[in-house]
């Protein structure tokens, strides 16, 4: 069948009363990949009630090579129908870099909702080629637009925007923007970012959870022995919701600074007691696992080593595994015989 006759057939089926037939027609027009088909699909989309057929039309548009498919999808950002807006974002995302010139236009000319959706369409795409869009977005008057831009850049590790994002951490910054900047800096920051953050948010203990969590992520990524005591002190003061972030940061610092002769890395009695208590009381298993691993950095102390050996028969499997890892990474002698006595290697397949 020639292309022209196929087009005629598909256009006829696109008007079928049967929902499945309209879906198939849309799919076929997508594979046919013509301008006429694109126009017909866009026209049908405006009138189509079935969410299934709409979805099929937008999938078809994502397959069509021509610019009309992209240009025709952008106006859907202004639709009252959330399904159409979301589908438009999905299609443009699938188009990848080819959609950037059109998204730039939307960014420069659209209202705040359109600008935000344009950034949603860029989510996950490398920032290369979209620098102008992001430069505009980071200076946008709408906080939602700025937040979305920062989130996008953090996700794709756009290191070239680090300074701009650090610059957004101002006293008058919207709290959600501050949180987004912190999250992004956990991906693209460096040691200087910690200095910037400390200037803006000097006391970790005073921070609400939605700031503390991302701060701790940045500390986990770039922190050193200097940050250890302040983070360690948080464990006793803060609620369970932030324990994972605290423990992650402490573990990351210990692992990064292993071998440094830093007094500040020493785990004091209150911290050791907090970690043991965390393991012994009914707490989320992953936290108990991390706490056991952290105790490994103090396993040169006999009472800590004994506690960890005791954990090797704990009813919670993650505690057993954490203790085994902690003891394996410690310098304790005769560990193999200890594990051997417990026949751990036989029963815990994950322990090597």
């Amino acid at each position, binding site marked *: 069948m020639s292309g022209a006759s196929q087009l005629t057939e598909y256009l006829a089926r696109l008007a079928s009363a049967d929902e499945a037939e309209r879906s198939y027609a849309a799919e076929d027009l997508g594979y046919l990949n013509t301008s006429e088909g694109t126009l017909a699909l866009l026209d049908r989309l405006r009138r189509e009630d079935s969410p299934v057929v709409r979805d099929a039309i937008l999938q078809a548009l994502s397959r069509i090579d021509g610019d009309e498919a992209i240009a025709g999808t952008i106006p859907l950002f202004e639709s009252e129908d959330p399904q159409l807006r979301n589908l438009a974002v999905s299609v443009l995302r699938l188009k990848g870099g080819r959609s950037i010139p059109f998204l730039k236009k939307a960014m420069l000319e659209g209202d705040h909702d359109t600008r935000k959706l344009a950034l949603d369409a860029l989510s996950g795409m490398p920032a290369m080629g979209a620098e102008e869009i992001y430069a505009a977005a980071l200076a946008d008057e709408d906080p939602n637009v700025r937040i979305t831009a920062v989130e996008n850049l953090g*996700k794709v590790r756009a290191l070239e925007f680090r300074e701009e994002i650090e610059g957004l951490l101002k006293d008058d910054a919207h709290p959600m923007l501050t949180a987004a900047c912190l999250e992004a800096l956990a*991906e693209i920051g460096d040691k200087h970012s910690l200095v910037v953050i400390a200037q803006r948010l000097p006391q970790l203990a005073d921070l609400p959870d939605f700031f503390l969590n991302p701060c701790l992520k940045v500390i*986990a990524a770039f922190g050193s022995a200097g940050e250890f005591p302040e983070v360690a002190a948080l464990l006793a003061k803060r609620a369970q919701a932030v324990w994972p972030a605290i423990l992650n940061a402490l573990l990351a610092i210990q692992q990064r600074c292993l071998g440094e002769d830093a007094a500040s890395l020493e785990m004091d009695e209150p911290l050791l007691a907090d970690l043991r208590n965390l393991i012994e009381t009914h707490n989320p298993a*992953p936290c108990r696992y991390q706490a056991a691993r952290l105790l490994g950095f103090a396993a040169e102390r006999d009472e800590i080593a004994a506690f960890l050996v005791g954990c090797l028969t704990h009813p919670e499997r993650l505690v057993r595994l954490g203790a085994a890892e902690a003891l394996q990474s410690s310098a304790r002698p005769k560990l193999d015989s200890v594990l051997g006595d417990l026949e751990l290697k036989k029963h815990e397949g*994950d322990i090597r």
Partner: protein
Amino acid sequence: MADLSIEQFQKLNQQIYLKLGLHFDEKKIYFMKSRVAKRMAALGLTETQDYIFRLSYADPQGAEMQELANLITTNETYMFREYEQLQAFANYCLPEVLSAKQARGEKVLRIWSAGCSSGEEPYTLAMIVQEVFPQVQNWDCEIVATDIDENMLKRVAAARYGERSVHDVPEEIRGKYLTRSGLEYVVRPRTAALVKPMHLNLHDRMAMRLMRAFDFIFCRNVLIYFDDLSRKAVVDQFYNSLNRGGFVFLGHSESVGRVTPAFRLKRLEGHLVYVKD
């Protein structure tokens, strides 16, 4: 072994759920860490953060996600697998469909087991249908068992299984629908006759369009091995293949709603099922 923080585990879980539809409980952190470590070693990566980034934003064809999927999923198949889901089918969905058909005077029941492998699933469905609705013998009932692998389809046609395939079949069901033949179990002819093996590639959109008018579609633990676009295309096709009021069943940890909003989520006495309105 490279470290996997709680936060990294959560990010990984999110990506695995987005791309494979699988969710791992927080207690699986060690399990995930060891599997990720294997993939990192294979890729020559030393930082877990780099691996997560690669998986999330630098895996356009989904190849790395597939490698990880092979390590975190099991390919085992046996009869009455995912029993809770089959209970929902047997106790609620099947009676609902049958009752609606009886009210309309229809006597046709069609079930599709998509990606049937060696046939344990379609024969399980056949046993359940006969158990719940013995009158099915007087109906036009067909369980279409499709797979891309011709060797698997030969095993479906043979209808002979070892102990491993039947270990979860309730004793009373085993006696009724299977017969012992040496070390194997053979599906009784009356039950086997309900199942029709058929070659089908779920990626073949033209062949898929011919699959119409089903009341139930089972496609469990198959689509996790598909990329996002293919998975969506298949589930969209399932919608068109179903009659109104028909149900689709993916694996118990796979979410239909995540792939398409076309189906309605229905709660039936603690079970969540997806129906075409």
